[in-house]
Each structure stands twice: as structure tokens, then as C-alpha cells.
């Protein structure tokens, strides 16, 4: 399908979608719940007062486009960040802006969610609909993957609880008790919605942050976990999410064709939603034309650090087809956490280990600390790449795929 045709279809679907919106009863529709926030923006402005330990966010769920490292434009489902957009007084006026912002606004990966231990987190999800697939009426959810002691009502599994229909909002509440590297994704028709791109980074910083601990002769104020001894202290941290797309599946979805679930074979391996060399572009990638010019790939995977610094990599995997191994060439990783738990036994025995590779299936996470040598030369590059070497490609284009660089400043 050429992009001009695509545009005309979109214009029709956006219009028909908005007209459909107006048939919803007055109590339905876009509705942000955030304590202290009166204009429904999920932020506190003017006279609004942010209650202590409270965070809010407003995500849209819908569709959009991204650009693969070989230039291919790819249709996706995904989340958009609607935080800051005024939604009250309710429909019609400001809510329209939210729907327009969310429509075709999907980003990949999803907007990162960064929380602090002790937070009360109000996450509003608004289903903005699928502009390119007006035939789909899929609801959506947010599954906070790995959250301990979860309750089904906020776990996002549609079979176990509720999911939100097009044009409406559902607010999830999470009390954030446990630091670590999690991830989030939509759990509706999970094999489809996740292959299509509804996945993102999510991590929780520990209560120990802000205290001072000396470890290895250096002072740290930021830590991966509440380690008690500063051993997870770091200078800079980077979320790195492993992912991969099967372009045939995305094309089938865009063309309203039957979806090849069992036959899925991913041909675009990525880190944070990009293949190499786009992974090392520190900026957002240019907006694709097909989504009306919305920037949809904001997350770089370029890691930069000063010599002698400690780098925390928060690695997660949300691809839906296979295991991947990430290797760190020329520098070793100290694995200090797995699946959002400090790597210690029940009596506190230290189980950290050094390695040059970590292997993760979908839904697994690893926290690894890299020590940049004190004598590293400025400009030195280390590579973080999949040792599943056939995934170092962007479809048929070699020397790409699942790789990024750690650069010494």
C-alpha cells in the first residue's frame, strides 16, 4: 500500500472515529484520575498540589508507524504519552485534543515508566482506537510485568479482569513497594498486541537512593537495589529492552489479512525499538510520514559514561518469539539483579556474578553493572550485541540488528 492511499484511509477513519465518540454517554469517555490534579492532565500545575509520594501518568493505546533501520516503514500498535494534556472539563472540547494526540501516536518502545519505591502510582490508560484498522474494536490493558503481590483488577490480564474499550479510560493504581527492573505491555490478545509493539521499559528506583554509601573506594548516591552496602551503586543507568518484529506479521495486520501466529519468525531484532546503527543515534528518530509526522522512536540505546564510572544496564526482553543472548565485548558485566530482585540468597548470601553474556527469554530481566576502566581512552567503544549472530541484521541488511555501543566520554 502506498503512503498516499494510506493517508486517505486514515483521514476517513479518524473522522468516523471522532463522530462515533459523540454517541458515548456523558459519563463515559476520557477520564484521568490523579489525586490533586483537577484538569485531568495527570500533572500538577497552577494551584494544583501534588500529594506526597504520588505519581501520575496518562497513556494512550492505539496504533502508529515506526521506521526500521533499513528504512522500511512498519505499522505498529503501541502506547503514546498523553501526560500533560488537559482532559477536564470532560468531553467534548479538551478530550478531542487527547484523542487527536493519541491517534496514530503510538511509540515504540512504549514511553518509559520510571518510579520510586514508596510511590503511589496512578496510571490512566485511554484507548484511542486503531486509525488504520477501524474494523478492530480491540480493548487494551497495561500489564505491569513482574509486579509482586499483584491483584487481578490491576494486572491487565483481560481474561482475569477488565480491559478498556475504545474512547474510554481506565486508571490503574499501583503501590510501589519493590525496586527493580520490570517491564510493561498490553496483555490483550498478547501474542498479537505485543508482536505489534505494545511493550515498554519500566523500573523502580530504591528507597536507598539519596543516601550516601561508599563502595570500592567511591561514593554513590544512586543504587539499583536496597543493598545496604553500596554494592549496586552506579553513576549512570540505562534501560535496554530487547525486542524483535516479524515484518510479515505487521504487514498482514496493516493489510487486514489473517495473522500468522505460529509461523511468526522475527526478522528485525532491536534494542529499545531500533536496529543498529539507529540504536546509537542519541536523538529521537525522525517522524515517519505515515503517522502524520509524530515522533515515534524516542528511545536511544547509546550508552555513554566517563572513564572509571559504573554503568547500570537494566536489561529486559519483551520479544514474543525466542530467547536472545546479549554479549558485552571487551568488558564484563556484573550481574547484581534478576527479575527485579537483588541477587542474594534468603540469608543475604551474595550471588552476584561476572559474565560476558546474559540470556533472556521474553518476560525476563537482568540488572548488570559495567565498570568503565579508569584508564579507558576517551572515545573507546565497547559493544553490546546479540551473540545469536544471525540476528545482527535488519531483515536482509547485514551489520545491524540487535547491537549498541558503550562509548567512553
Amino acid at each position, binding site marked *: 500500500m502506498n503512503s498516499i492511499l494510506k493517508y486517505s484511509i486514515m483521514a476517513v477513519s479518524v473522522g468516523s472515529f471522532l463522530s462515533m465518540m459523540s454517541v458515548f454517554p456523558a459519563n463515559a469517555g476520557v477520564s484521568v484520575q490523579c489525586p490533586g490534579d483537577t484538569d485531568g492532565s495527570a500533572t500538577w500545575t497552577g494551584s494544583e498540589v501534588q500529594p506526597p509520594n504520588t505519581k501520575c501518568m496518562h497513556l494512550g493505546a492505539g496504533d502508529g508507524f515506526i521506521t526500521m533501520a533499513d528504512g522500511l516503514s512498519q505499522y505498529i500498535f503501541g502506547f503514546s504519552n498523553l501526560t500533560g494534556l488537559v482532559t477536564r472539563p470532560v468531553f467534548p472540547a479538551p478530550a478531542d485534543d487527547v484523542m487527536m494526540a493519541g491517534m496514530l501516536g503510538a511509540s515504540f518502545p512504549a514511553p518509559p515508566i520510571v518510579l520510586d519505591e514508596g510511590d503511589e502510582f496512578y496510571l490512566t490508560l485511554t484507548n484511542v482506537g486503531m486509525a488504520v484498522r477501524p474494523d478492530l474494536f480491540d480493548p487494551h490493558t497495561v500489564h505491569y510485568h513482574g509486579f509482586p503481590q499483584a491483584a487481578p483488577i490491576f494486572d491487565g490480564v*483481560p481474561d482475569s479482569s477488565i480491559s478498556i474499550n475504545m474512547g474510554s479510560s481506565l486508571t490503574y493504581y499501583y503501590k510501589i513497594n519493590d525496586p527493580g527492573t520490570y517491564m510493561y505491555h498490553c496483555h490483550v490478545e*498478547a501474542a498479537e498486541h505485543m508482536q505489534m509493539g505494545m511493550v515498554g521499559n519500566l523500573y523502580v528506583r530504591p528507597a536507598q537512593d539519596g543516601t550516601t554509601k561508599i563502595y570500592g573506594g567511591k561514593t554513590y548516591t544512586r543504587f539499583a537495589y536496597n543493598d545496604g552496602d553500596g554494592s549496586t551503586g552506579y553513576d549512570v543507568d540505562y534501560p535496554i529492552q530487547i525486542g524483535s518484529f516479524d515484518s510479515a506479521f505487521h504487514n498482514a495486520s496493516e493489510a487486514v489479512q489473517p495473522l500468522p501466529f505460529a509461523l511468526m519468525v522475527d526478522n528485525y531484532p532491536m534494542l529499545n525499538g531500533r536496529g543498529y546503527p539507529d540504536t546509537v543515534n542519541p536523538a529521537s528518530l525522525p517522524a515517519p510520514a505515515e503517522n502524520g509526522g509524530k515522533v515515534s522512536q524516542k528511545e536511544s540505546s547509546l550508552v555513554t559514561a566517563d572513564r572509571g564510572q559504573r554503568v547500570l544496564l537494566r536489561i529486559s526482553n519483551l520479544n514474543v518469539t525466542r530467547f536472545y543472548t546479549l554479549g558485552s565485548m571487551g568488558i564484563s558485566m556484573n550481574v547484581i539483579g534478576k527479575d527485579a530482585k537483588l541477587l542474594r540468597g534468603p540469608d543475604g548470601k551474595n550471588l552476584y556474578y561476572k559474565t560476558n553474556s546474559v540470556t533472556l*527469554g521474553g518476560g525476563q530481566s537482568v540488572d548488570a553493572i559495567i565498570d568503565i576502566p579508569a584508564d579507558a581512552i576517551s572515545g573507546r567503544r565497547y559493544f553490546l550485541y546479540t551473540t545469536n549472530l544471525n540476528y545482527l541484521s535488519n531483515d536482509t541488511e547485514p551489520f545491524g540488528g540487535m547491537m549498541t555501543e558503550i562509548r567512553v566520554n
Partner: protein
Amino acid sequence: MHMRVIKTAFQVTVLFAAFLLLLTVNAGAMINGITGTTFNLTAKTGHISTPDGGSYLIWGYANGTGLAQYPGPTLIVNQGALVRVKLTNNLTVAGGGTPPNVSIVFPGQQVTIASADPGVPGILTKEAASGKTVTYQFTATNPGTYTYYSGTDSALQIEMGFMGTIIVRPTKGANFAYNHQDAKFDRETLFLLTEMDPRIHQAVENFGPAGVVGTDYLANYFPVLWFINGRAAPDTMAEPMAPWLPYQPYNCMPMMHPGEKLLMRVVGGGRDLHPFHHHGSHARVIARDGQLLASAPNTGPDLSTEVFTIQSQPGSTIDAIFEWTGKGLGWDIYGTAADGPEFIHTCNDTIVVDGFDDATHEYCADHDKPFPVTLPTNQELAFGGFYSGSPFLGSLNSLPPGQGGLNPNGGYTYMWHSHTEKEMVNYDIFPGGMMTMLLIEAPGVPIN
């Protein structure tokens, strides 16, 4: 050749029907299997069925004169027992050719075979030729979860179904996974994970094992079906020994109450790794391949860690203990007086002072805290079949006609599944495959 269907209402209906059946029968808190010291297994053919309507030839170990099973019978023995496994080869193959030899290997066990045994030497072990019997013997020295599978032409025979689980119960008792207090559990569930490439089964069905020779099916293996304990979802949630699944007797339906310990015995029964994600909370991995993760003989699992996804590796086993209380959610999971008089309850942490109610294991610090948000109106929501209509444990609320209904006691349900999400399908129908649901019932609701 197969039908490609995108999300059908039919699939949802099947899921519901299977689950409702389960609720009417004894679900069993312990793992189904056969106990004793002498096991007479017979290698036979059978046909399994998948929820998308498929039927596939399997080769399975049968219990004596019973039907072939996919997977083979779970052998449950006591630590220290002298175990004898007699394997008789009653396999038949298409085209009237000579059936292949069959055998069993027992990773983790010191197996002996009498020198006078009529078994014929194979590469890995002695094998039973067609119509003959071979007898393996071992002492179940160490407790734990083990696997057993074919030692003959393994790439083909394990795919065809020759594999199963061995559970060795420790001398400390049947409610322990190992001989240590920290390996105690209240309930246990087996998760034997396998995948299937139907091309192989169709070739063997039509032409016998020769049908695979000359193909690339084993070399370029491409599974399109995935199973837990031999069943693809939603059949995983149907009753064990369901009459319509005669060759797939085992279900996989973990159930528990808040505060109980559920032992997960996870077995990699096929050839692929699977990231098994158990919603609800972390699980503590206490053992691998029958070895307690202990730094010394009496320390207990002091090298154990907690995970939210179990990395299951082929041929390997993992024992993990899962617990759930809802601690720290920040709202009362049983509701408050503001929700109605029927929600009024107490939280008594007096006898064992641990922060939890002595009887219900409610986390008392969250007692009486209100539900934190307003839920959207019904017309804005899609409802899951397992949704009770209420966010509170043990409560039911009205739902639009035809919605919910699979959760008559208002339990909390959690999807437990392969996080390689393409494995949650039956061919191209989602959901299915390597998936089941954990059911946490409210305190006092009987399980069994």
C-alpha cells in the same frame, strides 16, 4: 493446510466450558501420577487432540495395559526405594514395517540393568526390541523432580511423546520437596512443557519412522503447537482423566489460598527453552535438576533466588515455591464498610505476630484501606470470563449478561504461560498452547 482463524468467539466459549467442567470435579492438591516401586510401562501408539480440532499420532508410555499417555505416567516414588521400570515394546508402525526399539534413560539416577536382561544394547542404554521387555533398576537416592525419556533415536522418539516426570518424595514427608523445612509446601503442580511439529507426526502416521528419513523436519524443527502436561490451553484447565482426552490424562490447574505455598515442578520435556511467566508474584527457585540450591548439606536452599519468569531449559527440571498474600497493595482486598455491610471484617494478627491475619493471612497494614480508583462504567469495559465482577477477593458482582461466569467463588485468577507469546496459540488461534490459570480462592473456600 490448517485453518487460520483470528480470535474467534468459539475459542472463548471452549475456554469457558473447559473451566466450568473443572470446577465440578475434584481438582486435586497433589500431582496426578502412579506410585509404587515397580512400574510396568508399555510403549504404544495413541492419538492426542488439540483444542483447534487437530488429532496427532503420538508414541507414548502406557501404564501397563492402559492407553499410551502424552506425557508418560508421572512416576511418584519415595526416597530410598529400589525402583524397577519394566518397559515392553508394543509399538506398531504404519506400513507394517518393523517397529523401532524403545528405551528409557533416567537423568540423575544410577541405573543398572541385569546382565541377563533380554534388552538389546543401544547407544545410550539397553533397548526393548519389538514385543520384548527391558527392565531398568535404580535406587531413588535423592529427593526431587526428575525427568525420564527415550534413549533411542531421541530426536524423533521424544518428539513423538516418549517422556515423563519422576518425583522422588523425601523421607521428611510428602509435603516437602527436599529434606529441609524451607522446602515445605501446601500444594504442588506439575508443569511439563513441550512443543510439537505436526509434520513429523503426520509423516510417521502415514509412513512410519521411515517417513521422516530424507526430510529436514528434525533438522529444521518448527513447532506450531505447545503443551503443558500434554495438553494445550484451554484443555490444560479441564479435569484430569477427562474422558474426551484419553491419551492426555493430566491437566494443569494450580489452585491455592492466600498464604499457602505452592510448589511448582517445572520440567523441560521437549527441545526448546521456554520462559514460563507466572503472574501474581515471584517464586523462589529452590532446586535445579533435583539438586537443592544449597551451599552445604544442611543449609537449606540458601543459594535460591526469586524470579517472575522461570527459564525452563530442555531436559532440565526446576522446583520453585510460589506464595501470594496481596501484601502491600495499598487497599483492602476484602473491601471495606464503605463498600457495603457484607464487606465488614476484622484483621487479627495476635497469635503468630507476622503482620498477617492469623486465619485468613490478610495483610493487616492494608486492612480497611479503600479501593483507590473509580472503575469505568460497564459499557466502557470488556470483561474476562474469569472476572467475578468485583475487585475484591471472594466477592461477586453483577456483570452484563453473558460476561464472566467462570469464577463462581470470586477467586483471583492469574495467567501462567510461556512468555514467548507465540507459544500461547494452537496453530493460529489465540489464546491456547502453553497457558493455564492459577486460581487463588478466598480463605475458607474449599479446594478439592
